[in-house]
């Protein structure tokens, strides 16, 4: 008796949504970034679930690559946040509103 794939998909959807809401609601740049990572993980979960569903390893390979790229992305993103923080003295996303009307 294996767990149905749909369950994994629903869990993944919940996690993805929580990550999205986090991006919209939180003001700290770092926490927003963490929410994005949550989203990525939810997608990885979906990929691996489908890999089992269809009985090939493509999903796992994709998840693997996704992880790699996510790592690189985190590195660069954090470097940017650090540089921004150094320039402006704040990690609050709302303070970067120079393109306001």
């Amino acid at each position, binding site marked *: 008796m294996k767990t149905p794939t749909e369950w994994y998909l629903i869990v993944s959807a919940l996690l993805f949504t929580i990550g*999205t809401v986090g*991006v*919209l*609601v939180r*003001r700290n740049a770092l926490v927003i970034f963490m929410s994005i990572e949550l989203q990525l993980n939810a997608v990885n979960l979906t990929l691996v679930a489908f890999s089992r569903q269809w009985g090939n390893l493509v999903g796992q390979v994709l998840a693997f690559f996704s992880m790699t790229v996510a790592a690189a992305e985190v590195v660069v993103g954090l470097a940017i946040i650090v540089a921004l923080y150094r320039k402006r003295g704040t990690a609050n*996303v*709302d303070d*970067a*509103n*120079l*393109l*306001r*009307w």
Partner: protein
Amino acid sequence: MGLIPYVPLIPLAAAVILLLTGKLWRGRSAGWLATAAIAASFALAVALLVKLDAMPAAHRELAHHVYEWITVGTFTVGVTFQADPLSIVMALTVTGIGSLIFLYSIGYMDGDERFPRYFAYLSLFVFFMLTLVLADNFLLLYVGWEGVGLCSYLLIGFWFERASAANAAKKAFIVTRIGDAAFLIGIVLVWTHFHTLEFAAVFAGAGSTAFTTRSATVIALLFLAGAAGKSAQLPLHTWLPDAMEGPTPVSALIHAATMVTAGVYLIVRSLPIIERSPDAMTTIAILGVVTSIYAGFSAIGQDDIKRVLAYSTISQVGLMIFAAGLGDPSAAIFLLVAHAFFKALLFLSAGSVIHGLHDEQDMMRMGGLRKAMPFTAVAWIIGALAIAGVPPLSGFFAKDEAVAAAGLLGRDGLWICGLIASFLTAVYMGRATFMVFFGAPRYEGEPHEPAPVMRVPMGVLAFGTLFAGLLGVSPTTGILPTYLGAPVFPSNAPSEFVLDTIAVVLALLGLGLAWFAYGSGRIDWVALRVRFAWVKRPLQRGLYVDDAYGLVLGDGGKLAAAALAAFDRSWVDGLVGLVAHATESLASVGRRLQTGLVRTYAAAFLLGAVCVLWFLVLRAT
């Protein structure tokens, strides 16, 4: 035949020379050049007359084609001059009277700083007038028509330093323009119907039944409008009294003898078309006689000696048009020629008076001048008697032939109107004569007779005035009528003798009335003027026609312009402003989308993504 083009071209050459090299001509030599040019034209015209006379009556026509002016598809117009009895008579009048006036001008304008230019303009005018009368097609006639209008403007405003002169020139041009526009439309209609503008072809086709009475009426009335403008008839007459701002010889030539008669020439020339419409003919006759009466009354109220003569011209030209409208072209032309003589004489005499009194034109400051200027007085009186219609002067024959034509045709209403006009002529001329030359002197200074160069033309004109009547002693058998084509009167017409007697009686009555009021000393006419100022004032203002135009068109135009400007400011500018304002309002609402905050942008992304996903999901169900 090769002579014909030279008639207009010699004055043109003089004009061009004087325009280009005016300053090189010292003293009065420019005047002598111009006079020689027009005298040469006169000589050529006489030669052409002789040539024509030698030809059989039915074929009296010479033409000379100079060059093909316009060829556009089927529309061709050539520069061709023709000489037939009508045009030769006109040409002789223009060049003959013109030569005398040129001679007079040499003395009158002596010392003027723009002496050569004056003669250049005068010569140019003669060229255009000759083009007008010698043209063989409507378009060339129109060229001359416009050209004389231009020269009239230049000459009326010759002393342009005076604002009144400049305004008078503009007024003349603009008012005649209205008539010119109507005339041009008439020409276009002629072409529409006949597909040619040459007189011969047009008049030949005018007789056909394909040319309806309606079309003829329209064209005739348009031509009448043009003639009314150029010949200063109601309602386009207001420019002529003001045109007296120009030098007196100009008034004599252009506004008495030649240009104002161009309208009469046009109507007489176009009679084959106009006769097709009896309604138009009657309209023309009525307009002529009504104008004549109106101008006669207005002349009684004038104090400026030249304005009396101006209204007199309007009145006499009205009688010419009256005669043309009755279908008696020879009477019209005879009056035209005779009028040229005596009106020019009257103007030159007036110029002599003005010159002698050092530019005084107000008749209230003249009086008793016959003692100081006897020669001028005699010349004037000859002209005055002629215009009043006293036999055996030319005016009697000419004017009364025109009026009698109505009676002979049995149109008694028009005949009586013509008699009224004649009576008024005698009254106002008598008044002017007695005010200026008789009674106690009211002038200042020592008036003297003009120089010989001015007296010679006056003398020649006086001679002509006395004897020009010989040209048309009888409307049916006189020289001029038979030359131009005499009308046929119905056999039950009253006898000419009776009609003429009535006219003479009226003329003497008019003169007697004027003598009684102004010359006899029995009436204190100075006091009467004050007492009857409420009558005199409207007459002097020409029954306020000109003032009405100024009010309706001038002030009315300014009012309309102000209204339009207000409309433009409030509505049109407001509309533009509204667009700008709406854009601004819209933009100020729309810009709130640009919050600059990443999180709102992220929310927008999410919204879009959710919508797309929903669309895909729903599509798959």
